[in-house]
C-alpha cells in the first residue's frame, strides 16, 4: 500500500507539469505586456490584483490548489462520476437559458456573484471528455459497430448543439475535435476523408461561382466514370454510387451551403467566413439580419488587420519585451484574451513564436505518448481528448490571429486571460496526470 502510493507520486509526469508551469508563466507575462504602463509599481500592481495580470496570477494560484486536490483524489472517482458530471454539465448549460447572463452577445454565462461569471460550456469540455472516455471504455461497447459510433458522436455533439443555441459557435466547434479521438479508437478513416472532402467542397463553394463549380463537379464525375469504365462494367453498383456522390456534392454547393450561410449563421459570422477567402458577403440575403430589421452593420476586419500588423511587424527577432508599439498602443482589440498571441509575436518575432509553438507541440506529443502508455482504455481515450481539445484551441486561436481562420472566440490554452479558460485546462491536464499516475491500473 505504502509502496503503491509512493510509486504513484513519483509517477506524476514531470514534463507535463513543467510545460504547464512554463506556459502559465508565459501567459501572465503576455498579459503583463498588454497591460503594462510605464511608471507603475510593477510588484504592487501584481499583488493588488486590480490589473488583469494580477488577476491571472490569482487565478493561477487557485488553479494550483485545485490541481493539488485533483492529484490527491482517487482515479476511480473520475470513472465513477464521469456520466454524472456529464449530466451535470448539460444541466448547467440548459440552466443558462433560464438564469444566464448575456456577456458580449452570447447568453452563456452563469453569474456566480462577486463579479465572477461561469461559462458552463468551458467546463463541459472536461465532462464531455470524461463521458466519451467512459463510454468507449465500457466492456460492452464495440466501437466497430455503427450504433456505438452514433452514441459516441451524440455524446460529443449534444453540448455543441447547446452551444450553438447560445450563439457560441466557437465553443461548439471544439466538440468536433472529439472525432480525432474516435478516429484513434477505430472510427473508419473514410469518415475523416469524407469530412475533409466536405470541407474542401464548402471552401470551393465560397470561392467559385456556383454554376462554374457545378460544371467542374460534373466534369470530375465524367472523368471518373470514364477512367473507371472497366470496373463499372464488372461492378454494377459503382455507377449509382458515383452518380449519387456527384448529386450530393452539387446539392451541397447549390443549396445546403447557401442555406446555412443565409439562415443558420449570423450575418457577422457569414461575413467573417467569407472575408477569410477574400470575398464579400451580402448581408441582405441573411434571414436573421432581415428579421432584426436593423440595417446590416458594416463589418470591418479591423481586428484581424491590426492583429496581423502586430505579428508581422515583429519581424525575425521581434521588437523586444514591452517594446511592441501595437501592443503598447492598444491597437489590437481583445488582446489580453483571444489575441494574446499577437503580443508575443510582436515582442519576440518569428523566433519567439516558433519556440512558443514548439513548446505547445512538445506538450501535445507528450500527451499522445502518455495516452499510448495507458493500460486502461478510459485513460487513453481521455488523454486523446485532452490532446485534441488543446490542439484545436491552439490551431484555431493562432490561425485566427494570423488571418488563416475566421474570428471566433477561442482562447489560447493556458495563455489567454480568463479564469474559466485557465481553470478548465488545468482540470483537463491534471485529471490526465492523475490518471497517468495510475496507468498500471485498469480503470473502467
Amino acid at each position, binding site marked *: 500500500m505504502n509502496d503503491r502510493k509512493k510509486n504513484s507520486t513519483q509517477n506524476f509526469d514531470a514534463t507535463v507539469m513543467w510545460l504547464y508551469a512554463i506556459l502559465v508563466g508565459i501567459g501572465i507575462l503576455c498579459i503583463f505586456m498588454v497591460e503594462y504602463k510605464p511608471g507603475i509599481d510593477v510588484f504592487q500592481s501584481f499583488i493588488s490584483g486590480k490589473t488583469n495580470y494580477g488577476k491571472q496570477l490569482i487565478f493561477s494560484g487557485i488553479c494550483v490548489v485545485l490541481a493539488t486536490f485533483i492529484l490527491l483524489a482517487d482515479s476511480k472517482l473520475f470513472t465513477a462520476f464521469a456520466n454524472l458530471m456529464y449530466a451535470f454539465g448539460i444541466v448547467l448549460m440548459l440552466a443558462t437559458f433560464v438564469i444566464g447572463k448575456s456577456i458580449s452577445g452570447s447568453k452563456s454565462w452563469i453569474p456566480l456573484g462577486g463579479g465572477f461569471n461561469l461559462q458552463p460550456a468551458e467546463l463541459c469540455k472536461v465532462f464531455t471528455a470524461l463521458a466519451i472516455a467512459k463510454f468507449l471504455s465500457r466492456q460492452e461497447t464495440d466501437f466497430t459497430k455503427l450504433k456505438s459510433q452514433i452514441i459516441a458522436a451524440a455524446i460529443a455533439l449534444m453540448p455543441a448543439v447547446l452551444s450553438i443555441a447560445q450563439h457560441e459557435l466557437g465553443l461548439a466547434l471544439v466538440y468536433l475535435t472529439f472525432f480525432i479521438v474516435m478516429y*484513434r479508437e477505430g472510427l473508419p478513416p473514410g469518415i475523416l476523408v469524407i469530412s475533409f472532402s466536405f470541407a474542401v467542397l464548402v471552401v470551393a463553394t465560397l470561392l467559385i461561382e456556383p454554376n462554374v463549380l457545378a460544371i467542374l463537379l460534373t466534369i470530375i464525375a465524367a472523368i471518373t466514370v470514364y477512367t473507371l469504365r472497366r470496373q463499372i462494367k464488372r461492378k454494377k453498383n459503382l455507377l449509382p454510387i458515383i452518380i449519387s456522390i456527384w448529386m450530393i456534392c452539387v446539392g451541397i454547393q447549390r443549396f445546403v451551403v447557401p442555406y446555412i450561410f443565409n439562415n443558420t449563421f449570423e450575418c457577422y459570422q457569414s461575413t467573417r467566413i467569407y472575408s477569410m477567402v477574400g470575398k464579400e458577403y451580402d448581408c441582405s440575403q441573411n434571414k436573421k439580419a432581415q428579421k432584426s430589421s436593423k440595417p446590416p452593420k458594416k463589418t470591418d476586419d479591423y481586428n484581424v488587420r491590426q492583429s496581423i500588423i502586430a505579428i*508581422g511587424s515583429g519581424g525575425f527577432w521581434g521588437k523586444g519585451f514591452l517594446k511592441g*508599439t501595437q501592443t503598447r*498602443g492598444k491597437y489590437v482589440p481583445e488582446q489580453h484574451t483571444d489575441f494574446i498571441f499577437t503580443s508575443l*509575436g510582436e515582442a519576440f518575432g518569428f523566433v519567439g513564436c*516558433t519556440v512558443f509553438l514548439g513548446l505547445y*507541440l512538445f506538450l501535445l506529443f507528450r500527451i499522445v505518448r502518455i495516452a499510448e502508455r495507458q493500460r486502461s482504455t478510459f485513460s487513453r481515450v481521455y488523454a486523446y481528448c485532452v490532446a485534441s481539445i488543446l490542439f484545436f484551441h491552439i490551431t484555431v486561436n493562432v490561425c485566427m490571429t494570423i488571418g488563416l481562420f475566421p474570428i471566433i472566440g477561442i482562447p489560447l490554452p493556458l495563455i489567454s486571460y480568463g479564469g474559466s479558460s485557465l481553470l478548465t485546462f488545468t482540470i483537463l491536464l491534471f485529471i490526465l496526470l492523475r490518471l497517468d499516475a495510475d496507468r498500471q491500473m485498469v480503470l473502467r
Partner: protein
Amino acid sequence: MSVYNQSRSRSIQIIFVLVFIVIIGQLIHLQIFSSKYDVLARNNAIFRKVIYPDRGIIFDRKKRAILENSIMFDLVVTPNEAKGIDTAAFCALLNIDTANYKKRIHDIIFKNTAVKPSVFEPLLSPEMYSKVNENLYKFPGFVLQERSIRTYPYNAAGNILGYIQEVDTGFLRRHKDEGYEMGDYAGYTGLERSYEKILMGQRGIKQLIRDNKSRIQGSFANGEYDTAAVAGKNLYSSIDVELQQLGEKLMTNKVGSIVAINPKTGGVLCMVSAPNYNPNYITGSQRKKHLGELLLDPRLPLINRTIGTKYSPGSTFKTMVGMIGLAEGVIDVNSTIGCTGAYLGCGTGKPKCLDPGTFKLTEAIAHSCNTYFATVFRRTLDQPKFGSADSGLTAFNRYAASFGLGDKLGVDLPSEKRGNLPTSKYYRKIFGSKWQTCNIISNAIGQGEVETTIVQLANVMSTIANKGWYYTPHLIDSIEGGDEYALLEKFKEKHYTKGVADTVFNAVQDGMQAVMDFGTGSGFKIDGITVCGKTGTVENYDKGIKQKNHSFFGAFAPRENPKIAIAVICENAGFGAAYSGPIASLLIEKYLRDSIAGKERKDKVESMTKTNLIPPKMQMALERIDSIKRAKLKPVDEPIEEDSISVEEEVVPSNLLQEGLPNIPAKSPESNKKKSPAILPNADKKNSLKKNAKPKR
C-alpha cells in the same frame, strides 16, 4: 489492454505536425518576407510631433529687444477626465455661463474626441492666468499649456516689425519645399516677413508613441530618431527705438510718415507710418477681433506709408532740380533769376511765386522760389545738345534715378512702391510727339507726375548729405551667426550719383542750410546743430476736389559729418514749415543729443502731439463706424439696417455741408460702396494730383 489501432497514433501526430507547419509557414510569410507590416505598425503608432523653435528676436541699434517672445497660457481640457467637476464654480472663474461651458465641451468632443486634450480657452490674460492657476487643482482634466507668442516690449514700430499669421493655402503653395504645414505661423508683414527664413529657425521632429485613440504614450525608442529644434536667429536692426517712439508720439492723430536714415550706413533709424497701432494689440487672445477692427479702420493703420504710399515730393524736389541744373552747367552758384510773382516763361503765369525778388541758388532754395526752379528745369531740358524735350527729360531722369528715385530702393520690407519718374514716352502719349517742357513745368517744383515715397525722399537727403553716394536704406544691420542667405549683401554696395560734382552738393547744402538759417525753416532751427533742410507744401486733390496741402520736410544734420537724414510728411496738414519741419527738427535733436532740451522745445513736443490733423473725411468715416457700433449696441427698437442706411445716405452729405466743403457729386457714394464698406478717403488721392500747380513755399 488494447493495442488496437495503435498505428493511428502516428497519423494523429502527423496531423499535428502538418498543421503546425502551416502555421509556421504563415508566420514566415508575415514576419520574415513582408516588410509592409513594420511600416503599417509605425504609421499606426508613431506620431511625428513638430517642435517649434523660438522665433528670433529683433534688437534695436542699442541692443534693446524690440520684438521678442513671451509665454502665454492656453487652458486645455481633456473632456472625459473633466467629468464631474464643479461646473458652476468653474464658470464663475472664467466668467462664462454654464450653457456656454456645455456648448464648448460639446463642440470640443465633437471636433477632437473626449479623450484628447483640446484648447478650451486660448491665451489667457495675465489676471485670468493667475486666477485660473490658483484654482486649477479643483478642476481635474484642465491644464495650462504654454504657448510662445510674439511681444513688442516698446509697443512701437508695429508697421515695420510686422506680425505673424497662420499660413494659408496660397502661402503653402508658394513655399512648398520649406516644410510649412497647415496651422503653422509665418511672418505676414514687415520684417517678420522679410526675414522669415532667419527668424523661423529650424523645426525639430519628435517621434512619439500614440495609442489607438491617439493619446501620446511616450517617446519612441527613447528619442533616438528625434531631431532637435534650432531656435531662430536674432536680428540686429539699425532702429533707434526711442526715436521711433518719439516719432510715433509726434505723429499721433496725424496721417503721414517719417523716415530717418543714418547716411553713413543706410541704416534706418526710425520709420513711422501714422496712424499706427500698438502691435501688442494684435497678439493675444483677441487677435482676430482686433485685426478685423484695424482692417476696417478708415485711417488704414495697417499700411506702411513710408514705403507703400507715393506722394508728389513738392518743393523738396527743387533740391534735385537745382543739383541737375548745376551738374548740367545751365546755371552756376552765382546765376540769378528774377521773379515777379509768377513764372511767365510759359505764358500761363504758372507756377506762381510768393516772394518776388532776384535770387541766387542759395536764396532760391531758402525761399523755395518757384520761378527760379521752373527756369532751371526748362533750361536743363531745352539744352540745344539734347535736340528735343524728349531726350532732355531722359537725361534729367538719369540723374534723378541715380539718387534712387523712380524705382524701388530695395528696402528690406515687403510691398515697397516704386515711385514715379515720368518718361518721355508717357508724355508723348498725353501731349503728342511734339510736347514741350512747358507741358510738364509742374515737375520742376515737385508737383506734376513726379512721385516719390518717403523713404526715397529720405534717401535723397542722405545722398546730398554724403555728397554723392548712398547705401540702400535698410532696417537690419546684421544677423546673429552670419548672413547665411546673403540677404544683407545688397546693403553693402555703395551707390554713386552720376556726374554730380562735390561743388554741386556744396551749393545745394548751402541752400538747405540757408533754409534753416533765414528761409522757410528758420522757425525750428536747433541751437548748435547745423541742419540742412527743405520744406515742401504739396497741393493735392481728391476726385478733383482740392484738399488741404500735404506738409513735407526733408533734412539732414549735422552738415559736416552728417549723422541723420530725415523726411517727414503730414498729409493734409498745411505748410511744410508748420508741422513736418518742427517734427523733423525735434527728432534730429533727440537723435543727436539723446534728449530734447529746453522747456520751449518740450512744450513743442506736447503741442505737436496734441494737434489733430486727421482729414475731415476720415474723421467722418470713423464717426460713422462709431455710430453704427452704437446703433448695434442700442436695444433694437427699429431694424438696424434702417439705421445704417440712413447714416449712409443722409448723415454723410449733411455732415459734409456742415464742414463747409463742396457737396459730393451724386455718384460718389456709389463708387465708395464698390470699393469697400468703409470709405477710404486717401486711396484715390495720390493719382488725382493736377499739374497746374500754384506758387507754394
